[in-house]
């Protein structure tokens, strides 16, 4: 097994090495490490497609400067992500890095990037460690701090007067952040707190335990394929009728809803974005995404898109001169772009201050999707900002 694993890693490295584009002087070089194969690849593809859409809509440019986008697949493995990051920094000499989906990978890569004096803009992962003491002037999160959507869910479940809730998340940094965030605003009893393996497929054992504790609601954070497995098995165990499910948007994104069918209808989940938010940027984004890729965007795609818009605004502010690092950073911090989610600004730790909504899963014709039914938080930041000293 050991040899097998080593060989696998070697194979991945070889594969990745082949896909390096030619260098060109008059462009800004952006390195994107994301998950494009294996479990969780739907998330990485959405981030990539959202980001690329923004670049393509500007004729291959961001801030009037040609974009040299180098994309590499981490297959959700920390070792790969780190190796790719080193290669992009040392050999490709990228100016900006982005793309990572998973918090455990971000924790390994982001410090490497900032230490090398480059910028990292997170389109997804927002681990608490990088928001508090571990914050850095060159690290920006364009999505959320990990706790945020779960905090909103905690508040919402609390408002709905559920007093005995069973909570579940995968056993990795974002899973811990998720349940910590939920418990920060939920004031009732915890019927059970369970951490499952990242990438787990069968939840029968957990569901049997869950039923035995008789909770009056279930809150779960399981992104990607894990969410599909869980929601299906939850319904098949006959629990949907007795115990309502709540989750963050990650547990009910477009990809998951398409795969679980009618069983998710009526479920409430929290998000900073939805495709029915009415602002010019979002209407434009949703229509173009659908036209280009033939599917509706998920929140991951919206985050990838916003990341590109932020870069666009900052490059414009320095007239394409990436050597003006301080001005570039100031421009990023100012966040002068029209986010598809509506009002958006950065807090002192370079994490978003934004509104968080609650969405309901409903059937729109043949399509199962989300609609916003209320707002939980306005201008919501995160609790770790106080520990951040830049």
């Amino acid at each position: 097994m050991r040899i097998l694993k080593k060989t696998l890693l070697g194979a991945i490295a070889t594969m990745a090495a082949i896909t390096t584009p030619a260098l060109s002087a008059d462009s800004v070089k952006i390195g994107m490490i994301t998950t494009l194969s294996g479990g969780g690849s739907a998330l990485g593809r959405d981030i990539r497609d959202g980001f690329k859409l923004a670049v393509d809509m500007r004729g291959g440019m961001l801030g009037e400067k040609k974009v040299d986008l180098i994309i590499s697949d981490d297959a959700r493995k920390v070792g790969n992500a780190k190796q790719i990051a080193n290669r992009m920094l040392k050999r490709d000499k990228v100016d900006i890095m982005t793309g990572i989906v998973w918090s455990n990978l971000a924790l390994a890569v982001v410090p490497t990037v900032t230490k090398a004096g480059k910028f990292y803009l997170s389109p997804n992962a927002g681990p608490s460690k990088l928001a508090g003491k571990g914050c850095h002037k060159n690290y920006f999160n364009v999505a959320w701090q990990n706790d945020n959507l779960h905090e909103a869910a905690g508040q919402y479940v609390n408002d709905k007067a559920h007093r005995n809730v069973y909570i579940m998340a995968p056993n990795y940094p974002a899973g811990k952040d998720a349940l910590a965030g939920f418990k920060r605003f939920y004031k009732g009893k915890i019927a059970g707190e369970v951490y499952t393996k990242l990438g787990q497929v069968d939840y029968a054992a957990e569901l049997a335990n869950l039923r035995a504790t008789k909770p009056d609601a279930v809150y779960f954070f399981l992104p990607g394929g894990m969410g599909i497995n869980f929601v299906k098995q939850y319904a098949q165990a006959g629990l949907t009728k007795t115990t309502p499910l709540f989750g963050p948007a990650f547990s009910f994104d477009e990809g998951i809803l398409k795969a679980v069918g009618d069983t998710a209808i009526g479920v409430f989940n929290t998000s900073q974005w939805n495709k029915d938010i009415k602002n010019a940027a979002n209407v434009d984004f949703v229509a173009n995404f659908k036209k280009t890729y033939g599917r509706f965007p998920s929140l991951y795609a919206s985050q990838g898109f916003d990341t590109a818009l932020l870069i666009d605004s900052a490059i414009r502010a320095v007239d394409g001169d990436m050597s003006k690092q301080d001005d570039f950073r100031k421009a990023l911090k100012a966040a002068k772009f029209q986010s598809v989610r509506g009002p958006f600004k950065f807090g002192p730790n370079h994490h978003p201050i934004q509104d968080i909504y609650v969405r309901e899963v409903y059937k729109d014709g043949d399509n199962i999707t989300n609609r916003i039914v209320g707002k939980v938080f306005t201008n919501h930041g995160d609790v770790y900002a106080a520990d951040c000293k830049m």
Partner: protein
Amino acid sequence: MTFYLFLEQTLNAFQLGVMLFLMAAGLTLVFGIMNMINLAHGSFYMIGAYVAAYVSDATGSFFIGVAVALPVAAAVGMAVEIIALRRLYKRDHLDQVLATFGLILFFNELTSIIWGPQALFVAIPPVFSGSVELIPGAPYPIYRLVIIGAGLIVALLMRTLIVKTRTGMLIRAGASNREMVSALGIDIDRLYTIIFGLGALLAGLAGAFAGPILATEIGMGENILILTFVVIIVGGIGSIRGALIGALLVGLVDTYGRAFLPQFLRMIFEDPSVADGVGASISSMSIYILMAVVLIFRPRGLFQAYG
């Protein structure tokens, strides 16, 4: 923890074990008889799941979906054997790993091109939807019982095939001494292609069955492949009986670990969140601990292959 909960978890363990057995049976034959490490076995599982999902969506019948998925998976398996893997039997294991890993990438990308990157939806066939209350207070999904039943039937059929038929005899003979078998005038190439197709068919069956309860998504095969390798190492490479016992053992250890370890640890640790964290970590290691223990006492697995 009640006795009923324990019973329910045991059923869950059997169901997981049976799924693993379907995967492991094919892999162990290929590994044991051809001495070939085939990482692409998970791809046959994925192909089975996707074809079943696609056809059952198009025809409205899950059974037609499964019926089409099986020959497709077998055909893909045999084609892969004839086109690519046949050349690798004499090569080093590392070459085989590299080549079959390449096949994983190929099949994942192909699936993405044909069906798109998003997971497919598969409904439980109406006959098997719903649940029965075998255990008081815990309605159990009928579909999961069907999987257990079907898996056990496949195990019986496999046993009959291996023990009672001429093909089975050749398979056993091929496992113990392939040169002798070919010296006796048996077309060993054809035999290998048949074994490979059979393995792919079983993997496709597991995938088709998995569709309604698991996510039919790209890369679904890799998750289960790791577990499958553990199963055949525990069970003994090349042994069908070992694959069955190994699969059930892994199913039991994994399920009990996830179900009861955190509660057990709560009695030891005072802080429940520490107990949950430690429990989650140990239970995800439990099957590897099982594998290590088995390898210490039975380095060749619980059951050695024939011969």
